[in-house]
């Protein structure tokens, strides 16, 4: 019923993904793309459209990209006009200031992402909508020939994720998942991954991932009047219809809204931070192209914590003393956004040799994407990587719901011998949407 993993391009070597060997290239921007003063000539700037300009889309992505001289933001898109206008003003204000002019016009607003994708003059899109929209928009963006930066968790369902990867591969798009822990936080996570990979703590015995719980399936959210500035039907998109409630899409709110805790739109804290921390585990373990083969929910007896088991028998537990804890035969590495520690401490002094995996690309996460757009390399968290991490989040959430141990085939991307669980691999989309 669901699309099995496509064999398209499966013959390819996928060097970057498979080995993770140093891809770190300094910026190599063709001089033909530079203006005489070293600033990028307008005709050679990467043109960008932002889809979803809420807390993350506007506050993080628009805010950062508008300041770059090698990028030109041509359009913003959102289903809420207040955010839309605020983003447009941010972009145009920055460009006016740079040009030392009283005003600047040239950032268009869209309520429907399909209109933005139809513009041939936009090279790439940054997608920061709620999670339940990622699959549909990314697939359409790939078909429209756009390179893509999409926020994590990559998709709401496993099947959407596979469709997304297939579309990105088919159209040869450069895709970055917003799992920025691979590139940022002073390199702590990258260093931890390098140490695990080079055997600094010996053989890995287990991994602990300290994150929150699964999403809320209880919608005790009373109907509220739909704000005039919001297209609520469009906000819901492929998710089942329900009345508006500001918990899901608050206006004039500068935090991360709580749709992320509700099952129709996202995978709860488990996915929200799992998309970061499971991602680091996959990276460190060299499992980027695959995933666990068994998921055991807590049963109050033998299994206190949700447990993933990889094909080599290594368990990864939900819950721990840090975001990611790697237990090896010769030591332990604990890494969170604020610290990197090891037991014994000397492990952190371990030096990598030329033949160890050097994972540092020497640039930030967005910068890595922009550089790869130019060189057509695979970004550090490409679509397959983002999909595999998102899959772990969804496997865990499915196990929490279904409440029995599950076997997972990471090649076929199906549960083994469990029809009920397999029904959760995808979700029917509300008409007219599809992936």
């Amino acid at each position, binding site marked *: *019923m669901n699309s099995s993993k*496509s*064999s*398209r*391009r*499966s*013959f*390819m*070597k996928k*060097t970057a993904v498979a080995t993770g*060997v*140093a*891809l770190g*290239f*300094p910026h*190599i921007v*063709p*001089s*033909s793309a530079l203006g005489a003063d070293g600033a990028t000539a307008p005709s050679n700037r990467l043109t960008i459209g932002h889809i979803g300009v809420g807390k993350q889309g506007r506050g993080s992505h628009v805010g950062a990209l508008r300041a770059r001289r090698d990028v030109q933001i041509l359009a913003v898109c959102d289903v809420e006009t207040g955010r839309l206008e605020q983003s447009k003003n941010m972009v145009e204000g920055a460009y006016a200031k740079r040009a030392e002019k009283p005003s600047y016009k040239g950032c268009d607003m869209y309520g429907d992402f399909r209109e933005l994708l139809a513009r041939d003059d936009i090279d790439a899109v940054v997608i920061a909508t709620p999670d339940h929209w990622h699959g549909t928009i990314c697939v359409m963006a790939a*078909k*429209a020939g756009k390179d893509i930066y999409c926020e994590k968790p990559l998709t709401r369902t496993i099947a959407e994720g596979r469709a997304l990867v*297939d579309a990105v*591969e*088919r*159209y*040869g798009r450069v895709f970055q998942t917003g799992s920025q822990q691979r590139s940022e936080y002073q390199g702590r996570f990258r260093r931890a991954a390098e140490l695990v990979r080079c055997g600094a703590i010996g053989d890995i015995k287990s991994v602990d991932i300290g*994150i*929150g*719980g*699964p999403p*809320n399936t*209880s*919608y*005790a*959210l*009373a*109907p509220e009047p739909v704000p005039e500035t919001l297209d609520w039907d469009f906000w819901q998109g492929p998710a*089942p*219809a*329900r009345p508006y409630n500001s918990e899901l899409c608050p206006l004039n709110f500068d935090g991360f809204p709580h749709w992320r805790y509700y099952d129709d739109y996202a995978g709860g804290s488990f996915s929200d931070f799992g998309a970061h921390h499971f991602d680091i585990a996959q990276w460190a373990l060299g499992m980027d192209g695959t995933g666990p083969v068994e998921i055991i929910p807590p049963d109050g007896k033998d299994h206190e914590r949700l447990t993933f088991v990889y094909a080599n028998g290594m368990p990864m537990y939900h819950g721990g003393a840090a*975001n990611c804890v790697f237990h090896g035969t010769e030591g332990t590495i604990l890494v969170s956004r604020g610290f990197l520690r090891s037991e014994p401490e000397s492990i952190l002094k371990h*030096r990598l*040799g*030329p*033949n160890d995996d*050097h994972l540092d690309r*020497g640039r930030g996460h967005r910068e890595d994407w922009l550089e790869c757009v130019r*060189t*057509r*390399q695979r970004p550090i968290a490409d679509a397959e990587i983002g999909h595999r991490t998102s899959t772990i989040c969804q496997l865990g959430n499915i196990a929490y*719901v*279904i409440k029995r141990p599950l076997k997972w085939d990471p090649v076929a991307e199906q549960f083994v011998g469990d*029809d*009920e669980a397999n*029904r959760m691999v995808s979700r*029917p*989309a509300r*008409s*007219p949407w*599809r992936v």
Partner: protein
Amino acid sequence: MKGWVGTVTIALALVCTCGVAQQDAVDEALDKIATYDWGQSRENLTVVADLVTASAASPEQRDELATKLAGVLSTDATYACKQFVCRQLSLIAGENQVSALAPLLTDEKMSDMARYALEQVRVQAVDEALLDALPKAKDSAKLGIINSMGERRDSMPVDALAGLIGDGDAKVAEAAIAALGKIGGAKAAEALGTAAGSPGPLAEAAADAYLLCGDALQAAGKGKAAAAIYDAMYSDENQPGRIRVAALEGLLTAEGGKGVDLVIAALSSGDPEMRGVAAGLVRELPDPNATKAFAKQVAKSEAPVQVLLLTALADRGDKAALPAITQAAESGEGEVRAAALAALGKVGDASSIGLLARAAASGEGDAQAVAQRSLEALSDPKANAVMMDALQDDDAKIRAELIRALTARGVSDAVPNLLETAKDPDPAVRAASLKALGVLGGTDDLAPLVALLVAAEADAERGEAGKAIVAVARKGHVPAAVTAVQAALPTATASEPQAALLTLLGQIGDDAGLDNVRAGVKSGDAAVQDAAIRALAAWPTATPLDDVFALAENAGREVHCILALRGAIRMLGMGSDRTGEESLALYQKAMGLATRPDEKKMALAGMADVGVSQVLEVVKQYADDPELKAEAEKALDKIRSRSYTASASHNGGNVGKALDKDPGSRWDTGAVQKGGEWFMVDLGWEDMVVTKIVLDSKGSSGDYPRGYKVYLSNNKDDMGDPVAEGKGETPVLEIALKPKLGRYLKIEQTGSSDGLFWSIHELTISTEER
């Protein structure tokens, strides 16, 4: 987090109860949900959801339950209820429930949820129902049915869908095209191929779907048929560039990765998108002859394509590209040269070292940085030996770059060479060598390093040597480092090296060197004395606490008194055998010696960690001093909060996580909220006033307490009346408390949830002392 163990047990009991009683229980549960609407309690829904989960144990009972659920859809139950029912049916519906769901497919309001229930049910009756509903459905329902047909990938509706490609409604036609692409097969491909080749607004959508058919054929091992589709789209110059790009990739797949000529042609294309994708293919094409063919293209291409090619050849990692890359690194300019130098890091070998070292020594921006990284990355086993030999190079800049590379590569075999280059005539080479020795050196290298320090002529070089010695010492060689320094002290007759050695002992910080430093304090040489006092004040252990207190009182220069006092306060914060009272007395002594607010603030901050009750009174004395007020209040907060200890009705081992200032960790009940669960904090002091508490469960946002009572009392066995009570409705609860004095703060959970734990990610307590 769901607390499922208990609820499932109850549900299982319901399901397993045979006969009329069980049916009555199910009927009762379904009756109760019929009037459910948005925003109401979901308690009754949870009972049904648990029945669904528990029914996995018995296929027969699951079918009976599914039939009863499907029956709700024909009643006048609310839409919210029917939506819930369809969600449950999506998990357990089978062939017997299709007939109840099928009529809803054409119901504009229920169609989406009927599909939600049916789309994953793997029986032919669903395909028949969808096909039957297709001509009857309109608008949104029709589009949804077509989409579901695509998702199910069953060939039954292909003829009907092919007939819709020419539908007057473009949305219907586009949906049919997409569905046909997903279903695939010869018939679908034929229809799509025709549509893709016909001009019109849907030609691109048809081409996309047509390629999807090719992918399915390829996956099924029908490479020839797939190649025909890809070739048709790639050869059709009327197709948009992105379709041809996708076709090219497909074509290469179908031909087993052969297709170097196709890729080269694409690289030469005027279409930047085609060129970019071709560069990606250069990386991944498995044809063993491809590397040489692509490498030949480097010299023939324009600069932007050269950059793409060189970068891609680097990722290929095939040595066959080395001559072309080397040539580009030698003769290329600007970004082409930089790309080639970067590629050498991956593909190069020991023969590339000279070229890379010259580029690294050139000081030319990008090229320098790229070459440095490539020198570090070379994987040829001979590379290290070649670099060590090249340390004899006439060019000092090249020598320095090679030393830097050997350091980054961790080549400890290079230490003897580095001890020689540390005496190089060029200061930059000497500095690089000392830095390298710090990284690569071991215990045997300490004495030669100390000798280098003593012989150094400039402060900067002594500093570099000192850093190297400390770095080696910290690799587990502290006693050897102290011994080496002590051995050198008598030989260092001049003031500067003697002072540098005492500074070094301070940096090593081992008590074995303390007497040498103490002796230095008494030196008649001002520079030596200054170095000794600074070393003592910065000593990393508390051993010289008495020395620094004495200096704080009696040192001849004010700066030395201040440094010593700061050292004393810092040392007071270290672990010791002193009693709390003794530590407090020493802090008070430091306060007495301090003449500036900075040192008084340091002492106040330190006092906050002294674990005796008198500390509160001592610190309070300074809360009225305008210069110290902020620091004193901060210390008071810390003193009070430090004394918190917690306990709970559930999961007592995790109570600390509610008070650890880390919203990423949490305490939870590990069980569904039923009422009666509690969390208690001992504030550590009697008669505390708590004005407000904040319960933060954002990290598990459904896990807020559904109801609460808060108590405060000096007697934990008699908490008295609540000082606050209410209902919880948000992930962050801010609760103001009625005035009362007490030591024990207890929060009782009084509500019940639909299967959720009670979690506290962070508990913030706002206190005032009486």
